[in-house]
């Protein structure tokens, strides 16, 4: 569904992405794992077209994303740090997004808005929200339009245990519907029962892209966190 070939990106002299080639297929839940600053977020942003890669190309459903923008209709993106216009209320942000995407084209999925209790604070300004509530808004927006692909950048960071559990449940149901889910997280224990494949990156390079069973077999560990720890110390 998403194919990246030889994607490279430099920020000044720093090489953030170095010849990344990945093939993500439908129905998988892929974990992007790697140390801080290894290029995970940059990679995600280049899939979304927020970062324009220097060389290589990315295709979405067989179409190069470079001069395309419509493909983003099929992506729900939850950023690491959700930043929204300060002056708008939650309700206004939600309505604006519905308006921009065109309400008629989608069956809206408002489950998260209800479960997170966002519908009771639609009048609150984005400026006054805590980090966790902002994350909830980001998550609700990512799932709102029933996208085929979900890209979640550190989804549970900053969420309380209850909200985090709700979100994980939601990710699981979406995965079972056969959607492609790309997820980055440093809390490996919570990825354990979620992901089917692992992409490991370090210093902008792709180290491996394996299914989780292969990874566990290769390292001889049962838990994802231990398996990754073994890889990192090798």
């Amino acid at each position, binding site marked *: 569904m998403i194919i990246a070939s030889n994607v490279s990106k430099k920020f000044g002299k720093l090489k953030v992405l170095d010849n990344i080639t990945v093939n993500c297929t439908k129905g998988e839940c892929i974990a992007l794992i790697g140390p801080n600053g290894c290029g995970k977020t940059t990679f995600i942003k280049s899939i979304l077209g927020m970062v*324009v890669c220097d060389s290589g190309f990315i295709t979405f459903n067989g179409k190069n994303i470079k001069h395309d923008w419509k493909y983003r209709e099929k992506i729900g993106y939850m950023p690491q740090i959700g930043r929204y216009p300060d002056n708008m209320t939650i309700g206004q942000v939600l309505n604006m997004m519905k308006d921009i995407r065109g309400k008629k084209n989608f069956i809206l999925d408002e489950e998260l808005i209800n479960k997170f209790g966002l519908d009771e604070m639609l009048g609150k300004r984005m400026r006054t929200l805590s980090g966790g509530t902002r994350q909830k808004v980001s998550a609700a927006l990512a799932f709102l339009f029933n996208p085929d692909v979900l890209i979640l950048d550190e989804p549970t960071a900053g969420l309380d245990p209850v909200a985090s559990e709700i979100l994980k449940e939601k990710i699981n149901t979406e995965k079972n519907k056969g959607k492609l889910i790309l997820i980055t997280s440093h809390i490996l224990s919570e990825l354990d029962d979620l992901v089917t494949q692992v992409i490991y990156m370090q210093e902008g390079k792709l180290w491996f892209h394996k299914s989780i069973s292969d990874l566990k077999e290769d390292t001889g560990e049962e838990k994802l966190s231990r398996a990754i720890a073994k890889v990192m110390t090798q």
Partner: protein
Amino acid sequence: MKKIIKYVIIDILRNKIVLAYTAFLLLISISIFNLEDNSAKGLLSLLNIILIIVPLVSLLFPAIYVYNSSEFLELLVSQPLKRKTIWLSLFWGLAVSMSCAFFVGAGIPILLFQATATGFMMLGAGLILSVIFVALAMLAAVIARDKAKGIGVVILLWLYFSVIFDGLILFILFQFADYPLEKMMVAATAFNPIDLSRILILLKMDVAALMGYTGAIFKDFFGTQMGLIISFLVLVIWMIIPTWLSLRKFKHKDL
């Protein structure tokens, strides 16, 4: 595109600075017209104030606004929208609000007190200048990543157009006083939209007679139909080129 322009304008209105700018312009223009017994004289005083204030506000406010809406831009870029649409909507939102502010603040008093050819010329020049400086501000904001740097550049641009440029022209005139520079001066005005609008308006007024020989040359050029069309085209180019450059830059910007 319309939807995003709508959101940009709503956001700008909520910001209240543009409303304050409108009220300020309104206050100045009405008080100037009431101070002078001859409204044509009032127009001349208003001209000098407007040529200072309009570029300054149209540069500073849009530049700060673009920096402050970086979150909004980031949010929009991750949505199924063309970058071109996003950037042009932001431009139109800002340009429309600044021009409306000028129209309500200065345009309506001008139309009330001095609805002559000179008045209309001034109204048109003010509207065009507003758009030109919005375009320049957005260009500065997209090139400089750092907010302080971007605003600094914008202030320098304003200084250049309203003070330094005139200084340079004077310097050249004095240094090369022995040579016939009049024709060159006409060409030089094309490099400064503020000067160009000032000359266009002044030539419509009676005071043009006081400008001496250079004034006569200017009148020869700008007084004709052709001269007017050319100067209008130059002003349009001043709108299009910065917008086009900033759009090109924004299309490849990493957010």
